[in-house]
């Protein structure tokens, strides 16, 4: 394996080029089979099974028993490929399935998520990634524990990491379960375990190395699956090949149509579990409190991005500090490709549904007519959509049409009348998005527990083989716990996702930033800051969400990270200044982290 490494890295473009070609050939094959009469269900199953088998194959080929390969993929992942892997790691089931729907329903207010989930990478590039790479840690708590010293700081880092990532991973396993159960026609509870099985196949044998190469493969699938339907649909509507650049007029047309259909004026008088009627105008931004809510949400998502360990650890895998920095630029570019498409997709879907001049427009038609449409029947049957003539006039008004946000992505191919092969492709893309994020998160948790808790704190004399066995057992146990929680269906996908960001920023944002940027920051300050910040954030979440407290300055449960990280910052500075400054060795270590030149602070195998 060792000698084969160098050529392998050089052959990457060829390998993934062939892989992409193979995937496109598979799509074409499915399209041909569909024309020859293969059923829609079989196509859906083939798409999921084929792609998951390919990921599992990559996972198997990347198996390893070396610490450096298991934890940081041997630190040889080129910037561009690490960018793709990070993009897949980053874009979750929520980004893929729920984002366009969120924009559809939330309009401008929801775009705060887009700004936050991209703007955070500026923080990653400028404050975090290059310095953590120079440090040479295996995990994020590894940095906290070494920079501040002591098991307590390390343990606090581990706790915050586990809480934030576990909140996130249940949502991802939930998403794999939803997609698998729909495509394979199995119950959700079984789908969850099928999804978990696929996730573990990708990560268990090869750790970070396996996850890296499957994530690159998953990115390719998910971006193709996201872009093809949108481009196809926009072509049918004469928006050209790059609709993202020219949908401005469509946005204005949507605004006119919304006034015509009285969006925001007509409120729904009935309700259906999990479904919503459109009540928020697309473009209207609002001033004052609404602008404040936009900005605070964007801030939480940005600081959270820069604190989430499963993202930061991806930059530990590059060969150098320079490539870590470049890799952040690639990551954001690959993420951008999907994120600047989502608002375009939401716009086109609105146009399709609202425009009475289009064949697909349903608002303003008679209820009988709408109920006869194929896709309406199909998605009503699975309770993703509901139509109810609330005012009894026989015509469908905007406040009588209820749907789940996910439909915007999942049903677009059908609404626009595209062949079924596209729906199968979308299912495979959603599966790839959810699996890749779940993989990254599970690995982040298992690595922190095996490296920081088990090896560094509990048993520093453990042998390599034993460490890696422990890491794998933890991965399976955590995955099973995640799948179990997911099968209980406790929260909606997005509520939990935003919380993960808030937890991470409450506990980790300032200890990470100040660890590099403020030499005076010491152990006492960091431990007190993490503890108080994390507890304050959690307390605030509890009070606002369940304790009946009025949100303070509009900082609701999606934004509790603001409270947490402010407390963290203040406590950390006050306690640091009140106690002794860090010793000579620590200050030297910080100097070392600030320059790219030289050896990493932590030895290669530690």
């Amino acid at each position, binding site marked *: 394996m060792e000698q084969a490494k160098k050529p392998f890295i050089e052959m990457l473009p060829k390998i993934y080029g062939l892989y992409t070609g193979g995937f496109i050939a598979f799509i074409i094959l499915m399209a041909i089979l569909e024309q020859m009469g293969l059923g829609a269900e079989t196509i859906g199953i083939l798409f999921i099974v084929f792609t998951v088998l390919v990921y599992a194959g990559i996972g198997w080929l990347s198996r390893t028993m070396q610490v450096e390969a298991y934890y940081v993929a041997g630190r040889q992942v080129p910037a561009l490929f690490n960018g793709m892997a990070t993009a897949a790691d980053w874009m979750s089931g929520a980004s893929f399935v729920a984002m366009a729907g969120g*924009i559809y329903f939330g309009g*401008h207010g929801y*775009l*705060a998520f*887009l*700004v*936050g989930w*991209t*703007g955070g*990478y*500026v*923080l990653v*590039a*400028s*404050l975090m990634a*290059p310095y953590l790479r120079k440090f040479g840690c295996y995990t994020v708590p590894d940095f906290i524990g070494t920079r501040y010293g002591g098991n307590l700081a390390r343990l606090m880092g581990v706790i915050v990491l586990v809480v934030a990532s576990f909140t996130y991973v249940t949502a991802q396993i939930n998403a794999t379960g939803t997609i698998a159960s729909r495509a394979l026609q199995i119950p959700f509870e079984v789908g969850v375990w099928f999804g978990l099985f696929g996730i573990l196949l990708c990560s268990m044998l090869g750790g970070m190395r396996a996850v890296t190469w499957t994530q690159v493969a998953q990115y390719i699938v998910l971006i193709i699956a996201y872009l093809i339907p949108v481009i196809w649909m926009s072509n049918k509507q004469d928006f050209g090949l790059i609709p*993202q650049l*020219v*949908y*401005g*007029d469509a*946005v*204005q047309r949507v*605004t006119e149509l919304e006034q015509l259909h009285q969006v925001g004026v007509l409120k729904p008088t009935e309700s259906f579990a999990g479904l919503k009627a459109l009540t928020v105008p*697309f*473009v*209207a*931004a*609002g*001033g004052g409190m*609404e*602008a*404040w809510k*936009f*900005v605070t949400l*964007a*801030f939480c998502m*940005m600081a959270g991005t820069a604190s989430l360990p499963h993202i930061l650890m991806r930059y530990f895998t590059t060969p*150098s*500090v*320079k490539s870590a*920095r*470049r890799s*952040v*630029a690639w990551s*954001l*570019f690959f993420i*951008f490709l999907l*994120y*600047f498409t989502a*608002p375009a997709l939401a716009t086109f879907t609105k146009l399709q549904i609202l425009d009475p001049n289009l064949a697909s427009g349903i608002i303003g038609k008679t209820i009988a007519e709408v109920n006869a449409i194929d896709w309406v029947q199909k998605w009503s049957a699975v309770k993703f959509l509901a139509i109810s003539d609330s005012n009894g006039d026989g015509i469908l008004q905007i406040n009588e049409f209820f749907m789940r946000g996910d439909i915007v992505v999942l049903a677009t191919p059908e609404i626009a009348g595209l062949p079924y092969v596209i729906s199968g492709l979308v299912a495979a893309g959603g599966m790839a998005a959810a699996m890749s994020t779940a993989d990254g998160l599970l690995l982040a948790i298992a690595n922190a527990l095996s490296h920081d808790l088990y090896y560094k704190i509990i048993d520093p004399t453990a042998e390599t083989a034993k460490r890696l066995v422990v890491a794998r057992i933890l991965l399976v146990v955590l995955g099973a716990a995640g799948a179990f929680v997911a099968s209980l269906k406790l929260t909606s996908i997005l509520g939990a996702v935003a919380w993960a960001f808030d937890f991470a920023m409450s506990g980790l944002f300032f200890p990470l930033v100040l660890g590099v940027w403020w030499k005076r920051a010491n152990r006492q300050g960091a431990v007190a800051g993490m503890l108080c910040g994390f507890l304050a954030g959690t307390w605030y979440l509890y009070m606002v969400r369940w304790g009946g407290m009025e949100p303070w300055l509009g900082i609701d449960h999606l934004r509790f990270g603001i409270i947490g990280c402010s407390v963290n910052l203040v406590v950390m500075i006050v306690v640091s200044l009140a106690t002794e400054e860090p010793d000579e060795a620590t200050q030297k270590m910080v*100097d070392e982290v*600030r*320059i*790219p*030149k030289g050896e990493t602070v932590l030895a290669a195998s530690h």
Partner: protein
Amino acid sequence: MDNLEQHWAETRSLTTWILILWFIFSMGIFFFANSLNSITFFGWPFGFYMAAQGSLVIFVVLIVVLNIKQEKIDDKYGLAEEQ
């Protein structure tokens, strides 16, 4: 100031500039999204455009600029990694 300190001073000032621009385009302008929407930008209401696309493009550019400038700083002080 020795080499290390100068390198860090320049790195810090570059980072500060990038973060100021980051603040403006990730948060600052969105306080005024409502007023910006009265401007039309290639068909888009401008506030909506910035949130849906404009700021995202600027973030990518910011990181690329940061990288280029930081690599220059590292080279200037001889603190870049050896190949």
